[in-house]
């Protein structure tokens, strides 16, 4: 009797150790997830493909959607094309489709990557793996990716805002991979408008009259640029979340409030803090909780 119970226990332990999710230690799983994220970024740079995808404001099937053709040429160009209600086709060219692809180290430094042991759902008739990026800090967005199991191209991404609501969904309906020798190297007729890379700094940007002395943990300044009405602007990001600080000469008034007053505005997934501080109009805007943005505004100090 005892021997039978021991044998059953041994078999149960053996079965559990072979079950999905128990086969690899957690640190190894994190390494696998980080490696897959890096492969996805590399695949986006090297794979040649074209397909149709939808960009949806909110959850798939619920929010406003834009259907567009996405193609990546062997020359490394990414083109976005769509018809605007029967009018002439619009065509955009961008260097990086997703912002988290621009700096993988920054993303992995601030967000922990988790790879599901089980396969993800089929997207655009392709098998996928599910990769999730979450921050240990509260008030940060999260990202769920479904990555092509074979090519590592991201076929679906779902961004949740800092409240946990689905904010944006990008999903391929079809995708066709081509080997580089057979792929079209030139875009179709018509010039493509460039979507500027935010990380490209403007030349000869004047110095900021105030500077951020205490940014939220994990954030890095990625650009400084000119803003309308003699303004100067800085953009900061932690890989998924971002905020901007815009400064320009300002005067207290009915709309801007009196000097020393901060006005906070919030809506789903983003917030702003504005005010006139020491004769400078301050606008702090981002997809962070308004308390974080207020802390940024309060940390401003005369630039040295």
């Amino acid at each position, binding site marked *: 009797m005892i021997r039978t119970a021991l044998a059953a226990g041994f078999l149960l332990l053996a079965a559990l150790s072979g079950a999905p999710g128990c086969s690899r230690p957690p640190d190894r799983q994190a390494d696998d997830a980080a490696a897959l994220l890096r492969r996805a970024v590399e695949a986006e740079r090297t794979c040649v493909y074209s397909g149709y995808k939808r960009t949806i404001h909110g959850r798939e099937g619920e929010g406003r959607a834009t259907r567009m053709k996405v193609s990546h040429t062997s020359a490394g160009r990414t083109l976005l094309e769509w018809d605007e209600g029967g009018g002439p086709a619009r065509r955009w060219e961008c260097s990086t489709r997703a912002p988290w692809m621009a700096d993988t180290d920054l993303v992995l430094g601030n967000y922990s990557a988790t790879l599901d042991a089980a396969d993800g759902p089929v997207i655009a008739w392709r098998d996928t793996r599910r990769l999730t990026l979450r921050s240990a800090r509260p008030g940060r967005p999260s990202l769920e990716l479904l990555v092509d199991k074979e090519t590592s191209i991201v076929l679906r991404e779902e961004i949740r805002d800092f409240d946990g609501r689905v904010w944006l969904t990008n999903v391929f309906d079809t995708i066709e991979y081509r080997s580089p020798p057979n792929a079209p190297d030139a875009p179709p007729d018509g010039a493509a408008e460039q979507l500027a890379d935010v990380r490209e700094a403007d030349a000869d940007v004047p110095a900021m009259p105030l500077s951020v002395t205490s940014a939220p943990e994990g954030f890095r300044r990625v650009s400084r640029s000119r803003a309308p009405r003699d303004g100067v602007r800085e953009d900061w990001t932690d890989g998924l979340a971002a905020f901007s600080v815009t400064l320009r000469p300002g005067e207290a008034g009915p709309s801007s409030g009196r000097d020393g007053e901060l006005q906070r505005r919030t809506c789903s997934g983003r917030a702003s803090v504005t*005010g006139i501080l020491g004769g400078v109009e301050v606008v702090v805007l981002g997809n962070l909780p308004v308390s974080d943005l207020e802390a940024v505004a309060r940390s401003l100090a005369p630039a040295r």
Partner: protein
Amino acid sequence: MRHPDPACAELSDRLDAAATVRSVDELAGGLERHLAGCQACAGLVERQRGLVRLLSSAPEAPQATFDPPSLPRRAGGRLLPLPAWLAAAAAAAVFVVAGLRLPMGPAERVRVDRVVDVAGAPPPVDERLLALTAGSEAVAMRRPTELR
């Protein structure tokens, strides 16, 4: 007090040698002649020889060795298990880093007197921020082609 007879004084200085020689003839400097004529010094030497014999016949004293007790490493006045120069360098580095990260005092920052929550007025949509948080496709989708 010094002995008035120089020969007696010299023997007093060399008493150990006089007591340990096998024969007084081995003593140099005329001491052997002095001992032959000075009864007091001869008695002194004889008494010293007796003392030497007594000590030589005594059993050897047992030898004892003591190991010093092993003390905890940090009990010797060193607070950290580090060389002094390394501890000093670490302390200097902490001081520098802390100094760099120290936030500015409130007096140096902008003055905020009041905070107002504005209802019913959403924050503006900013394309650069949209590109940084959602990517190029989200920037492009600001011109939708279908509504659901």
